[in-house]
């Protein structure tokens, strides 16, 4: 706005320069804009559009209004995967954050073998989820899996961990926490290193206990990091489905299925892309809500300048 007002008064050369800047900037942005439009913005709008149409097998599509949405609301599998996703988030997000914080505090201290500790905690992060799922699948296999063998050696009975709806979710959550905690540790580690050491020295002089210092100084200072990680972990929990393909296929009886996995099934196994679009709209809405929360709460503190 300001530049427009100014440009009327400015000589032509300046206006030309401003125009050139605009052209240059847009040329620089062109590849990114094209790709982002093609693979993010257009797909979001197209998803919304297709959710109002129905596609019969081998036939043409027809406008059905909100029919897909009523179908979704009546679909008990949809509600189950949504519930599962929430349970999965609640089970994995706080646990992995707490563990990450603990790990970061340990690694940050002058502890014996701290580089080894850091290595151990971080390693799962660089592994493919598919590989991880293969390994853990064998842990949980009934009878001769590692977990059952361990339990049996202690005299307990074996258990069908992934085949029992009451344990399958926890089993997957443990694995995901193992995989993700080290990643979040890194953020805490970075944040911890920005806390001035003088603070600690001052506290020690005043005779404050370490726990007191941690609770009253470190933790509040880490608050923005915690929020940041929580948001990321939450978003992550909606897109982590690779393990399901290997370990449970969403079973037994959808007990471990998640929203994105259900979308994959509906779209590509059942070839019902209209209903898949409807489900995707729900997922996008959830992610957008998380994003808005982030902008409202987080970005008051951290500005994108």
């Amino acid at each position, binding site marked *: 706005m300001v530049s427009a007002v100014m440009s009327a008064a400015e000589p032509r050369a300046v206006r030309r320069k401003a125009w050139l*800047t605009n052209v*240059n900037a847009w040329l620089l942005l062109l*590849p990114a804009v094209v790709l982002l439009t093609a693979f993010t913005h257009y*797909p979001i709008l197209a998803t919304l559009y297709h959710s109002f149409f129905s596609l019969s097998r081998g036939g043409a599509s027809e406008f059905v209004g909100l029919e897909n949405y009523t179908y979704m609301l009546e679909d008990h599998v949809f509600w189950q995967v949504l519930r599962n996703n929430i349970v999965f988030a609640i089970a994995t997000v706080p646990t992995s954050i707490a563990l990450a914080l603990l790990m970061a505090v340990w690694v940050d201290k002058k*502890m014996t073998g701290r580089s080894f500790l850091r290595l151990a905690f971080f390693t799962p992060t*660089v592994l493919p989820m598919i590989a991880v799922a293969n390994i853990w699948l064998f842990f949980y296999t009934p009878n001769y899996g590692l977990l059952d063998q361990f339990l049996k050696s202690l005299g307990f009975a074996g258990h069908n961990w992934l085949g029992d709806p009451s344990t399958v979710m926890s089993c997957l959550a443990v694995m995901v926490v193992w995989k993700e905690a080290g990643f979040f540790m890194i953020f805490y580690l970075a944040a911890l290193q920005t806390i001035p050491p003088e603070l600690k020295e001052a506290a020690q002089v005043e005779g404050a206990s370490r726990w007191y210092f941690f609770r009253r100084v470190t933790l509040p200072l880490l608050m923005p990091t915690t929020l940041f990680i929580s948001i990321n972990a939450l978003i992550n929990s909606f897109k982590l489905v690779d393990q399901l393909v290997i370990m449970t296929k969403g079973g037994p009886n959808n007990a471990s299925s998640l929203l994105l996995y259900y979308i*994959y099934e509906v779209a590509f196994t059942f070839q019902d892309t209209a209903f898949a679009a409807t489900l995707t709209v729900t997922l996008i809405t959830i992610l957008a809500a998380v994003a808005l929360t982030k902008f409202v709460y987080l970005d008051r503190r951290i500005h994108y300048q």
Partner: protein
Amino acid sequence: MRQHSHSVETIAAWVLALLWLLPVAYSLWSAFHPSEYATRFDLTAPLTLDNFVRAWNQAPFARYYLNTVMLVTMVLAGQLVVCTLAAYAFARFRFFGRDILFALVLVQLMIMPDVLIVENYRVISALNLLDTIPAIALPYVASAFGIFLLRQTFKGVPNELVEAARVEGASAFGVLWRVFVPLGKTTYIAFGLVSVSHHWNNFLWPLIVTNSVESRPLTVGLAVFGAPETGVDWSVITAATVMTMAPLLLAFLLFQRQFVQSFMRAGIR
């Protein structure tokens, strides 16, 4: 007293660390020993490469490796070019619609291509790219994360350096190439490591858009190979699993500091 609690903590940390390494250690054990020892831990068990040989012969892993390497190279090269140009524009140009456009870029941080599988599949098939490596790569090339990270870096470049280059007669492009890119080196390394490890490990999207051995990356190849239906020998599956993760794991062990610092840098804003 303090000393005591200290050592208790150290022990706890070590126990957790060993627990954390257990799955990886176990997969190595199982991969390098005959299948009778898959669940029996006997230190005298003979070492063998037989599982690797069998996995290698039962599925075209060489091709999968090649595909994955081509994939991560293609993604990274594309990202570096596209994100550098975009970040440069955002950081150094005042132009019409900048803030709105930047907000639109940030949308991708929340709604990633990973969740838009249905429509992205349509786009890729409309472009007639199905079952090719570019099909796997394209949705990720314009990385909002990369643009964001580089923009932050470029904003921190002192104006004097830019002016000095200008005085020497460098064009806008020349300034980017001679001033900004060299100064962004650490960011590039950080972003590069994060990007490579992410795309080496990516699975669902490649599973959807690839049909043939010629385009399947390692992760998809491994999933198809290890499907429990086939009941392939457990040790052979772990050998294949180890093959899939080995390059990244080795790189990580060798360049541990760089990895951790890169992930740290990529995480801080």
